[in-house]
Structures are given as C-alpha cells and as structure tokens.
C-alpha cells in the first residue's frame, strides 16, 4: 500500500486538542507523525485545501439488518452508506433475524463483515434470549465471540430484576449495556409523541414519561451495581435532567442523541409522513433544545444515528402500520453541522468530538483519533459545500429518509479506513 499524504487540511483531532491547518500521514494503514523523504516520493497525495480532516466518524447505533432482513439493508450496503457518510466505525444492533443472542450469529455477522464491509462494523449481542426480556443471553459467549456491548435495543428489558442481573453479569466481562429506554406498559399502540400534535392528529401518543421512567430506573440500577449503562437516543427534556444529575453524582451512565431528535420536532408529522416515524418519536421544541443543551454541557456524550433502513413498501403505508425508523448515516454529518454549528454555535471541533472520540469512548473502542500509531481512519469533509441528498441515489439499500430531496450543507468528500479510500467507493 502506498503511503498516504493528506495535504493542507484543517486538521481537527479532539483527542489531541488539535484544530489547525496541516498535513496527515499514514503508512501501512497506520497514522504516522511524518513521512520519510522516500515515503513522500511514493505517497498518494490528497490535496485537502478547504477541507476538514477529522478522525473517521464513529456511530455506535446502526441497524444493518443482516442476517435475516437483507431486503432492507445488508452489511455490504450499510457499510457503503457508512463510508458515504464519513463513518469508519459503526456498531450494529442485534435485532436481526434471528436475533444476535448467540455466538453463532455473531460469528455469522463477523464473517459477513470481513467479506463485505468497507468500514469497521462491530456487533452487539442481546441482553436476553430473543430480546424477549425473559432469560439472560449467554453474555460471556457473546463477549468471546466479539461483541462490544449488549443491548435489547427496541425491546427495552421491562423487568427491573432481570435488568439488574443483566448489567451485573455484563459488568464482569467489562461489557457496557445499551438500553432503549421505554416503559412498554405506557406505550401500547403508540406511534408518535404524546402531546398537542398527537391530540390534533388523532394518533396514539408515546409520552416522554415512558422514557424518563426507564432512564431513572437505569440510573438507579447503575448506581446500585456500579455497572455502566448507556442510554440510547435520548428524546426527552426530563431524561436529560435526570442524566445531568446522575452524572454530577458520579453514576456510570452515558447517553447518545440522534441527528433527527436535535433537528426535528413532532410538528413534522402534520402530513402523516412515515419517514418521520421512529422510536423514540420526535418530540417538542422544548425537548429538542434540552437535548442540544445536554450535548453542549456533556450530559449527552455523543451523536448516534440509529440508522434504521426499511423498504419503500414497508414504509409506504398508513401511519399506524408503518415500521419505526429512518436512515441516518449519509445525512448525519450535514444535519448535525447545521443544527449544532450553524444554528447552536457549537465549535466545529466540538461537533467532531461528539461524532468521533466521544462515541468511541462510550464503548471503549479504539477509534476516533488521529494520533500517530492509531489506525488511519479519516474523514475529509467540506463543511460548507451545498448539496441535495436524494435517498434513491444513496448507498443504503433503503430510502426511508426525511431528508431526501432536501438541500443540505456539509459534504463528506473522502473516507479512509486503515489508509484505504472507501469513499468515493472504489471500483471492485
């Protein structure tokens, strides 16, 4: 492999507190401080004037649907979407068919990753068998098979006792537990946020209290056991408050927020467009602002997309009957730049941190840095480039995005994994 020389980029590496114009070098897939004259002569040079060079983006919440739901997405197509979005490391959720609740399924996923993936795809395993919330999955075997966390994402463990035992047990293996916080007894048949808009539209409401209760429960269980619980896609202002206090008290909890929950509110549902239907649902302007405030002060640790592909024929239905979830990988950076940098005055380096070093830190992944010696996972983007996203022209197998057809600003130009360019996607 030729050495890589990225020239005159604005290099943002939050781990090193670096934000300055400079060069980035890689040899044999690893970052190096400088190239030797001989390496310079052989190097592949990328002129990055006007571009930002950041660590490859990290997304700790994606659904790649393999095995079993490959009509929606595959590891191959999902990884292409990741590459197009500047992501070099993603963590995929275990709600596949069958669910990733055993070492064999994890092995199957890792084989597919090795064979088909352009980026680093790290699997998670289930907390309970079949994500049914009844019996603990073989968490030790899952760890040995290679999972980076366990979660029943989408099917929040309802039993407090089982959750307590699950996190205690996972702690022994150093595995974080990721939780989709939802008290299901309060959300039966719910399809959107409960509030003024659900009243007007006549849709069943999912009250934020159902999230807040489980966030509180998790804070209590984490404090009680010392186990790390990561709260997925926080959507409610009160949950942010609960987490803020928990963190001040030193409880080992972390949290993520999605681009859609910081960009959109439930007003977007007025036309019953199922591309705005996801779980947890879009909430109010007050919630949206509280999540941004949580990202600003560190209460919420990172951005994660909850990239959730569904086919057009599954989404093209009555609102009540359409599945939850939207695409996220290919639009995340542009949406987050818009909401946080341009509209909320975050520093660009802060946003890069929220999408690289911080999510990697939540799960203890070796990613999210441009430090010499680290894997040469790099994202080059133009924060000011205007473009129009068209989901059908994107890399994901599905098209369920609320941003399709919308003008966005901030475009990924090049994504590099282990020193190799994976976006623009190389010809086979």
């Amino acid at each position, binding site marked *: 492999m030729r050495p890589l020389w990225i020239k005159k980029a604005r290099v943002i590496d939050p781990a090193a507190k670096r934000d300055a114009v400079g060069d980035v070098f890689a040899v044999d897939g690893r970052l190096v401080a400088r190239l030797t004259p001989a390496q310079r002569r052989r190097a592949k040079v990328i002129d990055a004037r006007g571009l930002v060079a950041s660590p490859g983006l990290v997304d700790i919440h994606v659904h790649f649907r393999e095995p079993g739901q490959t009509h929606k997405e595959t590891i191959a197509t999902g990884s292409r979407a990741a590459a197009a979005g500047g992501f070099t490391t993603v963590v995929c959720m275990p709600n596949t068919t069958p669910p990733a609740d055993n070492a064999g399924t994890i092995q199957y996923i890792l084989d597919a990753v090795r064979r088909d993936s352009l980026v680093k795809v790290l699997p998670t395993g289930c907390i309970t068998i079949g994500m049914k919330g009844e019996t603990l999955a073989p968490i030790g075997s899952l760890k040995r098979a290679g999972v980076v966390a366990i979660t029943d994402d989408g099917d929040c463990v309802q039993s407090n006792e089982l959750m307590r035992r699950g996190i205690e047990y996972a702690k022994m293996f150093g595995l974080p537990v990721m939780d989709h916080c939802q008290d299901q007894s309060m959300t039966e048949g719910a399809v959107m946020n409960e509030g003024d808009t659900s009243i007007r539209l*006549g*849709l*069943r409401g999912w009250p934020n209290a159902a999230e807040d209760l489980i966030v509180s429960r998790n804070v209590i269980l984490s404090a009680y056991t010392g186990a790390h619980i990561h709260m997925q896609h926080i959507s409610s202002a009160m949950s942010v408050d609960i987490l803020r206090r928990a963190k001040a008290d030193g409880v080992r909890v972390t949290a993520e927020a999605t681009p859609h929950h910081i960009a959109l509110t439930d007003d977007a549902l007025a036309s019953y467009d199922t591309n705005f239907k996801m779980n947890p649902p879009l909430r109010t302007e007050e919630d949206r602002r509280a999540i941004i405030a949580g990202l600003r002060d560190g209460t919420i640790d990172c951005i994660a997309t909850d990239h959730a592909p569904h086919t057009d024929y599954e989404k093209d*239905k*009555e*609102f*009540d009957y359409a599945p939850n979830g939207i695409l996220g990988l290919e639009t995340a950076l542009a949406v987050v730049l818009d909401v946080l940098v341009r509209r909320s005055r975050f520093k660009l380096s802060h946003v890069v941190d929220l999408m690289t070093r911080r999510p990697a830190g939540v799960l203890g992944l070796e990613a999210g840095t441009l430090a010499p010696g680290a894997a040469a996972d790099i994202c080059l983007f133009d924060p000011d480039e205007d473009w129009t996203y068209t989901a059908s022209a994107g890399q994901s197998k599905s098209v369920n995005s609320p941003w399709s057809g919308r003008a966005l600003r901030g475009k990924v130009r090049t994504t590099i994994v282990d020193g190799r360019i994976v976006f623009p996607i190389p010809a086979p």
Partner: protein
Amino acid sequence: MTWTRRHLITIEELSLSEIEQIHATASAFKKILTRSVKKVPALRGKTIVNLFLEPSTRTRMAFDMAAKRLSADVIAFDAASSSTQKGETLRDTAENIQALNADMIVIRHAAAGSPLYLSKILDIPVINAGDGAHEHPTQGLLDTFTMKEHLGSLKGRKVAILGDILFSRVARSNIHALTKMGAAVTLVGPSTLVPHGFTTLGAQVSHDLKSALADADVVMLLRIQHERQGHRHFPSLGEYTSVFGLNKTRASWLNPQAIIMHPGPINRGVEIDSELADGDRSVILEQVTNGIAVRMAVLYLCAGHQPEDVIASTQP
C-alpha cells in the same frame, strides 16, 4: 364564492365559507328527501366506491343513500370480504379501485391519516368517512347543520361535548367546525379521556359536569368506546354513568331550549338515560336524516359542482 376542493379530508382545513357552502347545498338537497321521488340526476353515470375498512352502519348507509339519491352507482368494498385480508396494501387496493374507473372514493379507516394518504396517491376525489381518532368531517358538518336548524347562527352559542373525547374523531371534527362558526365549545368528561391538550384546538376543558352543562345550548354525547380504551381510562361503565351519565336532573342544568345530540350508536343507560334519548329535546334521529343531505352536498361539490348549481340539479 366558488367551491374548489376535490377531496374532503378534514374540517380543520376548511374555511368558514366552505362550511357554509356545504350547509347551503345540504339545505337544498334536504328538500328533496321528503318528496315522493327522492332522486336527482346530479351524479348519473358516476361510480362511487365506499371503501369501509372499519365497521360502520350509520355512516355507511348514509353515504350509500346519499350517492343513490344523486343517481350515482355505488360499489361497496368491505374489509372482511376484501383482499386487504389477504395482505394487499391500501395503496394497491386504492389503485385497483381507480383502475376500475371509479369516480370517487369514500373511505372509513381505523388508521388516522389514511384519507390524506389516499388523496396523495389517487387522481379521483377522496372523501373521509372517519379516520381513526382523527376526523369525521361529514359528521361534524351534519352536527353543525342540525344545530343551525334549531338555533340559527351558532355565534356565541355554548356547546358541551360530553364523553370520550380523546379517542373521538367526531369530537375533533365538531371542535373545528364549531370554533370556526363562532361557538364556544366545552369538552367534559373524565380527565383520562379529556386531556388538557385539547385547549390547543380552541375548546375549553372541564371535568365538572354541572358547570359545563350550565346554560349550554347544545349537549353532544359521545359513546364511551370501552373496546378502545381497555380498562385503564376509567374504572367501569357504572362509575362513568354515575359521574358523567346524562339523566333528567343533569339535563335540567341545560338552557331550557337546549338540544341533546348523539352521533350514535347510543348506549342507553350508559352515557344517556333512555328517556332523554327519546325525549323532546333529543335530535338524534334528525342528525341521521341530515346526514344524508350533508353527504349528498359533499359528494356533489367534490364531484366538481358549485353550490348554486344545486337548484337546477334538484329538479327531478
């Protein structure tokens, strides 16, 4: 004032003038309902499909009757006997209906937003005959039509809507129609079924029956949909009746000229005493009759006619 809409999806989106145009048209059509020949040729040669994907008797019969009074051909499409049971999507069902050269679709569906969804897919007019807990525009139109017949202008009139508001499309359509027409709407019932959020639609919310009924010109009762709520929103039908059921004593709190309305089906002895349902102040059956005239007006206008054409078209 010209009528420009092809679809009737919600009352929320209608202007006051559009509501008045429908009422004026309905008024003209109502006259022919009492003639010996109850039919006009206005929609002769047109085919209307009643796509009822949720059980309904009253609304469906009224739409059927309205279409026939206008000389349209009517095709009924039942959920139970249709291909939706075999997994066909709503889009495919609707496109098939359009491909069969139907001229208009009347849709009743358990999922809110379905008529809007259909109207975006199809080129033919879509009439909402009730979508989930969202809207039931023709019901709101016939209810306000009936109120106007008894009270004249609704400006400043006090209307109490009593019962299960949360799950009621009838309540939502009436709230929108009544507030546009200048009436003061008070919603009353258990706090679990009448959440405070309804104030954002311009109605008052109350859990005190006496003050809500005091001086009301209209009380509209809604059926307690026990099958939708499970058993969480109130303890029992018996308790509901004891706290919120309309009986003679409570009816005496109303304005003496007040009318009692109910969109049906009524549960005698639950939300209303049998005696009151059949009493002088009850206009429940008038609502049903007016439902035909109002639906004739809606079908007629959405088929592309103007309110003023109606005089010509009512010649047998």
